[in-house]
């Protein structure tokens, strides 16, 4: 058996919105260079949990977090953690594609540029590599100067993935990245995610259970702010331990 490092782990992590509990006592380990999926009905806390891994919840007033959230064995909620650097290491792709109203090139170059990189040749290389890694290079290589708003929904989402990869993160968080896309674009994104796990630790929230089954190595089932079950994806989908998990997967609720 190969030893797999835990890239992320949480211990007794709870999260409150203005005093109301949203995540209750979550402990789980997310392995490096694997795809980990979070499933569960709307409002179960899976997106909230995802957003606590790069501290995007900091943007919301009244959020309080207890317990440990460790990435590379460092608690990211320590006082001396620089959130800006954390987010360079832990990238995020959102549910709705959100390219900037800039050119394709400028979208991808945005991250490197705010990090102070201005060398045109280096930027060209980074942009090309990121677009290739996001499997969109062939579609946009002749229109790098065109506005990103002119791309299709699926292309925009892959562009957003390229934009995230350009910052060279170690972890990529994806919040239902394919929920607004047609089946063809969805399958492209799924293929891409499977490729990406060679180099990145991927954590994905999805409503689509087939998607979780197809692309993830491990699956966590959340319900009402609790982590009900977390195991190998195969086990979760064929022989779950908990009745609630089975009910959800077989479509009896949610």
């Amino acid at each position, binding site marked *: 058996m190969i030893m797999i490092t835990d890239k992320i782990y949480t211990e007794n992590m709870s999260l409150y919105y203005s005093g109301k509990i949203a995540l209750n006592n979550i402990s789980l380990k997310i392995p490096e260079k694997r795809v980990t999926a979070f499933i569960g009905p709307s409002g179960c806390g899976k997106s909230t949990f995802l957003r606590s891994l790069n501290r995007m919840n900091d*943007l919301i007033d009244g959020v309080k977090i207890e317990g440990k959230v460790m990435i590379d064995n460092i608690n990211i909620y320590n006082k001396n953690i620089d959130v800006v*650097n954390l987010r360079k290491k832990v990238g995020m792709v959102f549910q709705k594609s*959100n390219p900037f109203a800039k050119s394709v090139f400028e979208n991808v170059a945005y991250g490197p540029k705010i990090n102070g990189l201005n060398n045109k040749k280096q930027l060209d290389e980074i942009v090309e590599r990121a677009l290739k890694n996001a499997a969109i290079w062939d579609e946009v290589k002749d229109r790098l100067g065109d506005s990103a708003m002119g791309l299709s929904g699926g292309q925009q989402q892959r562009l957003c993935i390229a934009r995230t990869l350009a910052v060279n993160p170690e972890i990529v968080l994806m919040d239902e990245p394919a929920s607004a896309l047609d089946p063809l674009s969805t399958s492209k994104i799924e293929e891409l995610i499977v490729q990406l796990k060679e180099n990145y630790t991927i954590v994905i929230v999805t409503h689509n259970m087939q998607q979780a089954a197809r692309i993830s190595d491990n699956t966590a089932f959340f319900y009402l702010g609790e982590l009900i079950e977390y195991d190998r994806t195969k086990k979760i989908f064929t022989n779950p331990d908990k009745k609630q998990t089975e009910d959800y997967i077989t479509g009896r609720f949610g």
Partner: protein
Amino acid sequence: MINSFRKNIKGIVIEGITLFSALIIIAIVVIMLSVIVIGGKDQLSWEFLTSFPTEGMTKGGIFPAIYGTALLVIIMSIAAVPFGTVTAIYLTEYARENSFIAKTIRFAVRTLAVIPSIIYGLFGLGFFIKFVGSNIDGAFFGGELRWGQPNLLWASLTMSLLTLPVVIVSVEEALKTVPQDLRAASLALGATKWQTIRKVVVPGSISGIMTGTILAVSRGAGEVAPILFTGAAYYIATLPGLSDQFMVLGYHIYVLTTQSANVDQTLPIQFGTTCVLLLLTFILNMSAVILRYRIRKKKTN
């Protein structure tokens, strides 16, 4: 039968009255515009726009008044637009929506917007001229009267206070049209808040900032009261600098109609000046309306 006939009559009369008052509004606009345009159209010429008044302001052009108005609104914008934009950025990007400080700022902005313009004039006189100007003179010029008197700079700054609420509200509205998703995307890429504001939020609302500027300029160009005490002049033979009094379109009309030695003789010039001022504010307002319409369209998309 008779009853319902009466009801009918009553309905028609009421509709007629409401329509009549609505038509009066149209009539007022048409009469006002046509009187000004008919009276002023023969006066409008390149000559009129580019020459100085002559013969005790009964002949000649209104160039110094146009020049003064232009400088006034430019300096006013240089002061009001950055200040207003930064305030709007604080309100939308930094302050919590319902915090005490945000509420207080919004209350102050609303209050500024409803203060009668003559009071701005008095404030400008008291604050900029008597307090700031006199102290500059005392500190740097040995008490010699230089900045402690009405001039273009103090008038422009007074006017910028008047137009500040317009700028703040327009820019705030524009900043709000930038989707939260884009701010989140930028922050998730490891941008700081300030980088996000500078590279994503402000570029995304630049047309709103321009709308605010134009509305402010248009308001400033038409106001007379704030500059009465702070710098407007009856007649100046040379073009003004920052520390000089200056001529301005709105005040020029007032001067021609009330202070002139021969009011009847200046009538064509009064009409011409009014025409120019009206056209100027009309063009400015139209461009602001068009820009704002575009922003709203973008927002709904």
